[in-house]
């Protein structure tokens, strides 16, 4: 049975990382196409005419957009192995809640760019994590996938904001390191230093450096 999977992505995107991790968790073969965001490909514009954003998963020619929607799609299509969401409806709702929280706060934080807001968000997430190894309990899952891509950006935030996430939120860092021990994660997340270099080059390019 020929399954064609194409992922349109931009390498430092935490949202794209979610989809990479989900695909790898399910052991799926896929082709990744790197988008040059200032010059979006005709394919991207055709597959995501509404938002014109990455990531987009194209499955046998049909597009699925919005990273968390893609992750759920992957989980439901390939439901014979490696469940990403719990089967219990209440636990599933909790997982969806926390993934949604991350997205809501991420867009707000981007708008406000506050170090204080970021720490507050992490502290709430630490509360949700409690003493569990992963957000869902013993098994790596949906909420971990929703958040771990952000780890690529920690070094950038820390350097620009002159603070240490580990000092403020040690549980989050411990959780991140635990996730990174999984090959599906380590192969999906890029080197934080590379992300930092890119962020700095954007700043220079758009005249944000003083």
């Amino acid at each position: 049975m020929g399954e064609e999977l194409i992922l349109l992505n931009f390498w430092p995107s935490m949202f794209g990382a979610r989809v990479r991790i989900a695909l790898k968790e399910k052991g799926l073969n896929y082709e990744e196409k790197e988008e040059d965001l200032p010059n979006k490909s005709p394919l991207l514009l055709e597959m995501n005419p509404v938002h014109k954003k990455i990531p987009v998963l194209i499955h046998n020619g049909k597009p699925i957009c919005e990273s968390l929607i893609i992750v759920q799609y992957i989980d439901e299509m390939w439901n014979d192995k490696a469940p990403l969401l719990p089967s219990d409806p209440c636990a599933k709702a909790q997982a969806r809640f926390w993934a949604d929280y991350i997205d809501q706060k991420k867009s707000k934080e981007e708008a406000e760019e506050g170090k204080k807001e970021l720490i507050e968000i992490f502290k709430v997430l630490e509360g949700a994590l409690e003493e569990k190894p992963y957000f869902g309990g013993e098994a790596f899952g949906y909420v971990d996938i929703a958040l771990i891509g952000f780890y690529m950006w920690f070094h950038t935030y820390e350097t620009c904001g002159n603070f240490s996430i580990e000092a403020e939120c040690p549980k989050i860092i411990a959780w991140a390191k635990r996730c990174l021990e999984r090959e599906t994660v380590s192969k999906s997340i890029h080197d934080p230093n590379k992300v930092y270099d890119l962020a700095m080059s954007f700043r220079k390019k758009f005249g944000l450096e003083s």
Partner: protein
Amino acid sequence: MAEVKMFGAWGSPFSKRVEMGLKLKGVEYEYIEEDLNNKSSLLLNYNPVHKKVPVLVHNGKPIAESLIILEYIDEAWEGPDILPKDPYERANARFWAKFIDEKCMPPMWKACWSIGEERAKAKEEASEALKFLENEINGQKFFGGDTIGLVDIAANFIGYWFRIAEEIVGLELMTQDKYPNLCKWAEEYCKCSFVKENLPPKDKLADIFKGIIQAQSAPK
């Protein structure tokens, strides 16, 4: 016996979404009206993160965020499907429900209550967003097909609240000539018996909206 409670606010489209979901599945529940200016300690305990309605409490366990609650209702109870069964169609339904929440409602609401440049900008944004919905509903009775589904429930604000607000504030946005499909959908939607049962009274909503205008034009 399963115990189902929901915390809501009579005028909130988000709250009404949940009631629609529960009624669609024929679930019996206890409704607790919240005064949004004076939230109960019970609500704050059940939703400490967002402190908002609606919250569904099933056997003592709280679930928050209307779209998440709707998916929960769909999974926890038998009855008519809120989401389709096919994974691709499910992804599509989730996409449009999210689109309504993030891209339609904020500028539509803002267009109602702003003036001048701000209103023009919000109107433009809302117009663009509604165009996508207009195309999506094309040729179908409901977003869910022949029957109401997640997207129709999510679009309750567009189908009802907004039409009332538009009239009161004199905003011509969702017009018949620009959005014939959406207007037809709104008409069908509001005719549906159990949608009708889950809409707040028009005059009460109109009073609220008129109150907002008065508060805005009151001398400071």
